[in-house]
């Protein structure tokens, strides 16, 4: 009994001690907003895939999951996320990231594309970035919330973990796009369905406030945008690794791999 409890505790402690300095190096200046990024819920399927040394991930999103230009795909956060994950998990874990972005898809339109996506790619994890398009079109927040819930059910039915990514912080359009109701809806669904949420909005707000990035300058240059995406990718990788680790401690601790499924109603 005692070893059962102290085992994972010790393991967790070792992991924390070992990953501490590595974390700081990996995250660099992005780290200032680190306290906002934590996996509140476990990612059991991702953890199992890491164990199998092969993780298949889909990033499903709208325009803000990509960057313009010839180098855009390599510099946007999904690619940076893949790189950071590889660094964190070591070279013997293969990580495949498929990016599916459609500029003007609302959450409910994305849900429609999910089933074929799951069948084709069989992902262990789907990073689902959404909300901005819905807010701009003024989709009923309740409808948005329902779409998020349905989407999560589809993902779980397809045996994939889910991670939400919310909106960008955009100071220039802050007074034109009312994000509030959509941010709340996503946070609520995340809590209710036990889905880790990457609070991109909060993180970018922190970066802007602390002067890591100046997000209100008008510019044609892409360098700041690239660094922002690089940071988002790194922080997202941290959240996913944390979520997977949480699943491992859950397995040894209480043996409840299937807890995320308990409220599939």
């Amino acid at each position, binding site marked *: 009994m005692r070893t059962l409890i102290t085992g994972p505790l010790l393991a967790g402690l070792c992991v924390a001690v070992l990953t501490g300095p590595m974390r700081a190096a990996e995250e660099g200046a992005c780290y200032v907003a680190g306290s906002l990024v934590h996996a*509140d819920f476990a990612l059991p399927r991702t953890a199992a895939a890491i164990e199998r040394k092969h993780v298949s991930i889909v990033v499903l999103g*709208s*325009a*803000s999951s990509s*960057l*313009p*230009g010839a180098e855009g795909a390599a510099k946007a956060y999904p690619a940076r996320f893949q790189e950071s994950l590889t660094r964190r998990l070591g070279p013997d874990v293969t990580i495949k990231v498929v990016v599916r972005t459609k*500029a*003007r898809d609302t959450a409910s339109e994305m849900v429609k594309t999910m089933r074929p996506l799951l069948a084709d790619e069989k992902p262990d994890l789907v990073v689902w970035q959404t909300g*901005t*398009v819905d807010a*701009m*079109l*003024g*989709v*009923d*927040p*309740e*409808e948005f*919330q329902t779409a998020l819930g349905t989407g999560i059910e589809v993902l779980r039915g397809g045996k994939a973990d889910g991670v939400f990514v919310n909106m*960008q912080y*955009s*100071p*220039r*359009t*802050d*007074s*034109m*796009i*009312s994000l509030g*109701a959509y941010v*709340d*809806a996503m*946070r*609520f669904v995340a*809590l*209710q369905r036990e889905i880790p949420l990457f609070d991109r909005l909060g993180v970018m*707000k922190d970066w*802007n*406030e602390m002067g890591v990035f100046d*997000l*209100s*300058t*008008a*510019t*044609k*240059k*892409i360098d*700041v*945008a690239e660094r*922002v995406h690089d940071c988002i990718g790194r922080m997202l990788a941290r959240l996913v690794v944390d979520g997977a680790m949480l699943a491992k401690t859950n397995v040894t601790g209480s043996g409840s791999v299937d807890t995320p499924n308990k409220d599939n109603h």
Partner: protein
Amino acid sequence: MPPAAAPAGRDLRLDLFRGLALWLIYLDHIPSNMVSWVTIRNYGFSDATEIFVFISGYTAAYVYGREMNNRGFIVASARILKRAWQVYVAHIFLFVIYMAEIAYVAASFENPLYSEEMGILNFLKQPDVTIIEAMLLKFKPANMDVLPLYIILLAGFPPMLWLLLRNATGALVVSVVLYAVVWYFDLNLPAYPSGTWVFNPMAWQLLFVFGAWCALGGAERIGKVARSKPVFWIAVVYLAFAFLITMTWYFPRLAVYVPRLLSESMYPIDKTNLDVLRFAHFLALAILTLRYVPQDWSALTWPIMRPAILCGQHSLEIFCLGVFLSFLGHFAMVEISDGLAMQVVVSVLGIVAMVATAALISWYKNIEGRKSPRQATPNADLAGGEA
């Protein structure tokens, strides 16, 4: 049944709290403003909108109820509709300012990080549709939802006022039934480019009519109950409960202490349709206010209260100014600095501008009132212009 008599003298509390509500709405409308932490929406379910709508209903009944008793249904209705028209014009004016802001940003701001967010400017590409939808009250950009609600509430008010004057309780029942029907069938007005109205007028009318009912003698009828000890304690407990729940939104780690059953039955707390929890929260606040701020409270005449009261007395103008100032304040924050000092400066300057404008409007009304002797009837100027 004898028509209910409007109470004599203006209740300064209404002006005071409407003025404060206008300040809070202004602070809440500036995005990423730390100063808005002081506003009530962060400490409970309801916010300044409830106060504004309730007091608007109260004053509308107070002013036009007397008019309907004295000069009949037609004259009073005509005046109410004239007021609705004024609010409509004000809304279009704000829309023009909003368009100017958007067009400026579209022309001057470029950043590869925000190609998605710039989609909000797409409607500039089809001004034909956008402007017509705005005139039909279907296109309502951010922070411009309250006036369309107010327009519909006023436009539908004449028959409701007629009924309120004949059978106040019956009118309240009609209002509650409409509210229930709206909830049951999930009814709302359509909006452009998609979705529905942010403030569903058919749900929010409940608060407006309740305010009107209170003005027409309802307040005295429930006064005893509202001032009783048990009701007071229920209100206190409910406010404390709402406060604790709200804290779990800002400190998500606390959310685990909210029982699942409770959170499942409670959420989402629907602002669009005036959730019953929000209505109850407003009632609880009103009960506490009744207890601690009596109508003859001497502090109401203190100079320090004067700025808020002045703003409350010219609510339409000050509301519009507040929306405009919140655009301007946000613009200044983006252009110059968005540090905490700037946020405080913008918040304070905005409120000062609102007070100065209210004082100016009072002065205008005063000199205009002196010119025409018909306006000199006691209180008509003060109350008549500002329902």
